[in-house]
């Protein structure tokens, strides 16, 4: 970063400072759109719920810490806000104060801190080796990857950030937290919070150590295998999952690992693909969770099969759902297509085993994604002849519908004019 503003210099190595660069812009776009959308959505969705003060306070604080994360000019500032974000988003999961919600929230906290402390391990090792933690695109070259211990520590940091991004084997908090969290909170978790993990890896590898630092290590293969496994496994589990929100949570696990896979290629093409996937996934998954939320709210049911015929009552919302689903699968003109196209090219360019395993895994996952997302669109519009329409329409509040529509449009925009977001 060219210009930075140092808020507080703790000592020679640690300072809280902020700056702005290309990636800050991208991350900020995601965060602001998502949090504003969630806030508007909450106006309609949260009507009649308890503990609204604590909800709004923590939603705002979580948003604020993510904005600070986007502006962070060094790894310490990033990490500080990363932990604050975790602490502020947990109350959103526990919002209902039921035993399940509290347990899921606690699990979320513990998994997150497991990740955070893995990051901290690397942070300690790197600062003991005298690393400079400021962010410069392409790396600061402050330390060399000469010892195996250092690269291992960096791998731990990647795993640690991977916990937030739902990478196997640290994914299970996502599927516990989402079904019990209130829907706007799920939308925030799956749209924004998980991306903090990806952002951490981007900041670490592309802005601090430099992609070459990690490219030479043996761990990079392990990392690629983990991400590809997660891509397929997430889709597979989503396919077998009957609960709507849990299915979407598995979908998040799978889709986030597309981003991580793109990053693990450590090439410019892979990096672009990862950023596009980050944008497309954030907008569409946030919208999908909001849609799931309104469906659950109007019907009072939670399984995917319960939403048969819902397209007759709410055709517009289901249309948004379909567009987002297409983006998840990777069908033009949505953002998901262009992202996956970049990822495929990058994995073919990389060569080696990823040139084979990458495309195969992405293809299998795309098919599975179609298989677990599209049936709702089909059954929703075409429930079949023997379907009985019940007349208990509850209206979907406008404040819920507008953010959904906006996010869907954004998701398509990423596909049509990606440069608008990347530059």
């Amino acid at each position, binding site marked *: 970063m060219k210009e930075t503003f140092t808020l507080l210099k703790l*000592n020679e190595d640690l300072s809280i400072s902020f700056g702005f660069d290309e990636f800050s812009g991208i991350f900020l776009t995601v965060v602001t759109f998502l949090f504003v959308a969630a806030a508007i959505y909450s106006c309609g969705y949260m009507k009649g719920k308890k503990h609204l003060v604590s909800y709004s306070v923590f939603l705002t604080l979580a948003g604020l810490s993510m904005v600070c994360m986007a502006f962070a000019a060094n790894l310490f500032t990033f990490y500080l806000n990363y*932990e604050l974000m975790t602490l502020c988003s947990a*109350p959103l999961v526990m919002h209902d104060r039921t035993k399940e919600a509290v347990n899921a*929230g606690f699990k979320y906290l513990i998994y997150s801190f497991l990740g955070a402390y*893995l990051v901290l391990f690397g942070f300690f090792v790197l600062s003991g080796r005298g690393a400079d933690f400021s962010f410069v695109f392409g790396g600061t070259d402050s330390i060399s990857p000469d010892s195996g211990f250092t690269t291992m520590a960096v791998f731990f940091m990647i795993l640690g950030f991977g916990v937030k991004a739902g990478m196997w084997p640290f994914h299970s908090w996502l599927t516990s937290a989402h079904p019990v969290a209130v829907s706007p909170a799920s939308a925030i978790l799956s749209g924004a919070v998980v991306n903090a993990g990806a952002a951490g890896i981007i900041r670490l590898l592309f802005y601090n150590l430099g992609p070459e630092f990690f490219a030479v290590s043996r761990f990079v293969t392990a990392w690629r295998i983990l991400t590809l496994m997660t891509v397929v496994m997430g889709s597979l589990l989503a396919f077998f999952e009957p609960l709507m929100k849990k299915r979407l949570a598995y979908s998040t696990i799978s889709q986030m690992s597309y981003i991580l896979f793109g990053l693990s290629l450590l090439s410019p093409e892979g990096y672009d693909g990862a950023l596009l996937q980050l944008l497309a996934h954030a907008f569409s998954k946030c919208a999908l969770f909001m849609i799931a939320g309104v469906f659950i709210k109007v019907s009072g049911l939670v399984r995917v099969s319960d939403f048969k015929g819902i397209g007759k009552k709410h055709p517009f919302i289901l249309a948004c759902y379909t567009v987002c689903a297409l983006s998840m699968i990777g069908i033009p003109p949505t953002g998901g297509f262009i992202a996956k196209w970049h990822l495929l090219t990058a994995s073919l360019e990389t060569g080696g085993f990823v040139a084979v395993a990458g495309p195969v895994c992405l293809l299998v996952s795309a098919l599975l994604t179609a298989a677990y997302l599209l049936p709702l669109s089909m059954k929703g519009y075409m429930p079949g002849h023997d379907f009985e329409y019940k007349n208990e329409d509850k209206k979907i509040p406008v404040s819920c519908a507008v953010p959904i529509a906006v996010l869907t449009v954004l998701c398509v925009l990423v596909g049509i004019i990606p440069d608008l977001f990347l530059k």
Partner: protein
Amino acid sequence: MSSVLLLTAILIPAIFGISVILLPIGNRKVYLALSAAGVIFAAILTWVLIVNPPEGSFVLFKFVDKYAIEFKIDGLSRVFAGLISTLWPLSVIYAFEYMKHEASEKTLKEKTFFGMYTITYGVTLGIAMSANILTLYCFYEMLTLVTIPLVLFTLTRAAIMATRSYMVFSLGGAAFGFISLIFIMVYGDSINFVYGGVFNNPGIDGRENLLRLVYFMGFMGFGVKAAVFPLNSWLPKAGVAPTPVTALLHAVAVVKSGAFAIIRLTYFSYGDDILYGTWVQYVAMGFALFTILYGCTMALKERHVKRRLAYSTISNLSYILFAALIMTPAGLAAALSFMIFHGLMKITAFFCAGAFITRGERHYIYELNGIYKEMPVISALFALASLAIMGLPGLPGFIGKWLIATAAVKDGGFMELIGVGVLILSSLLTAVYMLQPVVRIYFSEKEGELKPAKDPGPWMLIPLGILAVLLPLVGLGFAPLVEFITKVAEGVI
């Protein structure tokens, strides 16, 4: 500054404490004021001495030519004395209100408590200001004796058992410390504390391994108070004592005297020349690392709030020992910094636990469910302390861990790198056992029949408020403090 003031600082609390016990004062306010006056007067004097340390030492009396009871204030003394002189006045003020709950109507019992509490301050100052290992040893033994009535206070069966355990462990441990002392007397250049050690004479040639073994005995002996595994079972039991005792003595003064004695032994008596890189360093470090994990695991299992905090103390004390055992100036600086940071954090947590006990009869973690509605201030402070202990950046715990870990990585030995991993694992366990009560306080619904609770009055809130300000202040503005401590650790001050 005259060096006789050192003795004055030690004697003031003792005189005030003895007069609180012996003088026939029936009025509660008078004897409270008397003990507070003793503590605060001595604390001010100590701070003056810390800021302007007198040159030279003060010899109280000589046993024989070489061996004397002697006081001196050096860098290390200034750090430890500063820590206890900040926290002791706060604890006495806290005790005013707290002890009302423990000893209603029993003036004599309460007078003894406040008297002994005040005397203990003097004894701990004696440990901080000892100029040689003999003096340190004497005050260390005295500390055990004067704190016995404090642990015994409630006179319940649990308290008696706890006292017995504390006595046996401490006196037994001191015996091992004594063996170490004898070897220093026989083989050392002198018994005084000299930065870098006193074994620089040819007399030790060929006896290095024997000395290392004796060092290890001393480590384990003084390690009793620092709660090294397997000699730590007295500490959780001692949680039956009133909270001002557990908060100050069992999280700061007594246990850190153990750590302080080990630091003296390691850096100022034996010296890193004969210890660094040898088996004894790794064995001792192994014990410290195991204790870190043991403490965390037991804390996780424990459902009693104060005992959980006691196990957490066991684990955190071994952070200090681990850092000290790195045996580099950076390691010593990290140990001393963490000593201060841990003192501030843990005393806050204990004060909150004490408030839960006096103001709501909540002893167990599951009883804390939803208590934030009734005790919002204490709940918030407890959450703050918890976040600090688990190491949230911006609060002291993080910086403490950062200093220890960077010192360990810089040294780069195999054990040290394992130590960094252990530190991280223990941080995770700490997050689990400290966040669990916080989540219960804020997000669980109250269960079962519990007495109504309310926030305590000003005498308990003032010390807590001061600590609550100190925590983020130290967490963010630690630089001058750590700079000073680093100079101490390098032997410059």
